């Protein structure tokens, strides 16, 4: 009778170990779970998410953007948009934070093996791609050429600026762009979809992984199709309002699919078969 069933609503207690300001409204926090066993066994796939919890304010969903092999901390990048994210921005090292996860499906990196990989990110959309990018760099032999087109409104709105040279050194072909000219900016200027069509990567044996604001995704998809990418070659991660994160509370559904449980990662092919309720 007394079968132990874990409580999926109960967060693990973690400690904030580091706070990295990324942009005027995005901070990256690193969290260490207090229970060393749990920390050691916190296994996840790139692209999976977790619910961060500040008791007294509430919970919100964020992608885990550290690579799964990193056992020193879990990393999250948080844009200040609401109550919970405001409170998270006030946290300092040593503060307590709840972590519930990993949740969701993550990227199907197995089927991307042997292919060239094209990451296309806008703004905070770099966060879900960072974990997969780092994962692929750790398993570089399994993948072909890895390239990244990353755009932000201004140079100051670009996340992980300090890391990009490291990625380049490790072989990532990086193209950076901002919306308008800025003093000292030596990279590209223009919207991500424009830069994509200028770069014109070949769809042959390539997988494109896109994340960014909805309007960017829309035009990037258009551009990718122009270039000859087929729907099965394109992946994106979706966002919805979530509460439970485990497919129960109801709100993040698109038809019979729950973004929290069946996503947040979907191929364009899957999205085409789902009800268009973004």
């Amino acid at each position, binding site marked *: 009778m007394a079968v132990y069933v874990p409580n999926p609503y109960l967060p693990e207690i973690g400690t904030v170990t580091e706070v990295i300001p990324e942009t005027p409204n995005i901070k990256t926090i690193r969290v260490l779970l207090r229970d060393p066993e749990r920390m050691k066994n916190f296994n996840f796939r790139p692209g999976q998410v977790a619910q961060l919890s500040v008791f007294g304010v509430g919970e919100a969903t964020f992608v885990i953007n550290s690579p799964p092999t990193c056992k020193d901390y879990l990393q999250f990048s948080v844009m200040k948009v609401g109550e919970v994210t405001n409170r998270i921005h006030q946290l300092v090292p040593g503060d307590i934070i709840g972590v519930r996860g990993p949740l969701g499906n993550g990227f199907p990196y197995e089927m991307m093996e042997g292919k060239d990989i094209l990451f296309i990110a806008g703004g905070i959309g770099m966060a879900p791609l960072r974990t997969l990018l780092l994962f692929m760099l750790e398993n570089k032999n399994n993948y072909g050429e890895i390239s990244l087109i990353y755009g932000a409104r201004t140079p100051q709105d670009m996340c992980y600026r300090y890391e990009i040279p490291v990625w380049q050194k490790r072989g990532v072909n990086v193209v950076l762009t901002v919306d308008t000219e800025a003093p000292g900016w030596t990279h590209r200027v223009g919207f991500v979809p424009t830069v994509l069509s200028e770069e014109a990567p070949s769809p042959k044996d390539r997988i494109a992984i896109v994340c960014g604001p909805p309007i960017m995704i829309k035009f990037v998809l258009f551009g990718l199709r122009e270039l000859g990418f087929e729907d099965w070659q394109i992946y994106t991660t979706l966002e*919805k309002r979530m509460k439970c994160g485990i*497919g129960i509370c109801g709100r993040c*559904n698109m038809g019979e699919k729950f973004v929290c449980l069946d996503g947040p990662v979907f191929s364009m092919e899957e999205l085409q078969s789902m009800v268009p309720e973004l």
Partner: protein
Amino acid sequence: MVARRKEKKSQNRIFIPLEGLNQTLENLSKHFTVWVPMPSGENEWSLEFKPLHRGCKILLDRQSTLPPKKVILPQGQTLIEYEYKKSESDPSKQDLVLREVIDESPIIVFGTRPCDVRGFLVCDKVFLQGRYIDVYYRARRLNTLFATLFCREADDACFCSSVGSGPADMEGSDIGITPIDGGWILEGLTDRASEIFSLCDCEAPDEKQIEDARRVQEEVRSMRVGNLRTDGVLEGVKGQFQNMELWRDIAESCLSCGVCTYVCPTCYCFTITDEPQGLRGERLRSWDSCMFYQYTQEASGHNPRPTKLERYRNRLGHKFSYFPLRYSGMIACCGCGRCIRSCPVSIDIRQGVERVREAHHGCVCS
């Protein structure tokens, strides 16, 4: 030894006389919380399930206005109590203590109808049979027994037979209640019933009463309640998803008041919020409704279901298409008719289903 076994056997059926109902249930309430349908307020026009109290008026003559949903899924429920404390090992640091509040006290719901219990069978799919198990729902569900009436009180809004159930459907119930002249026959349907009967202190029914009950059950079994056709709706919702004229036709008068979800035995959507009181507080789960704008509104301000058309489309779609697609064909509607009776602008979900069907079949033909 033999005698005792005989006594137990005879306890698979008991008879409760009309005037003995309160006393019998009061006997049970020493061991269980007994929920019964009773008037919501002073008058009797609205009924709801409440815990039995001495001398309360138990009304088994019609369907309750509100379903017993809250017995298993309370309208507001503490999930976790939290408290921030000074760390004992390092007083310069803070500690967080969490306590799960899981209620496992035993419950009997007496006087449910097949539609009420069907509602829980629908919710079970979500809370107990998915990738994650909801421990709060599970604790209450496993510790709750249902004593369900063979239902003779269908009205024009009822359509349980159209959605996979029926007025004699005892699936999920532990005890069947058959109303006969002068009282009720209770019949054990699961192993858990005999324990209840041993606590009831009631007589076994005589031959005539058993025969009466059999006749009533036969009559109820022969009833078909409702004539809604649901074929084609599974695919129809998706096929007609962008046919906004159709959805306007169905939902234009909707007020987004949410009463349909409030009275629905199969509507289980909820929100989670924190209620702080200084350094301690609670994480609460409360009923929510897909009829509300805020339900899907994102922090950015974007809302994937911005108007009542999208929201009603989701409610109807969820019940008759998305849910069956996800959970092996089960329709997430028990046909109780409460949404139809309660809607202030007389929206009838059956008409919506019918229109989707027509539009879908029309499409297939053309």
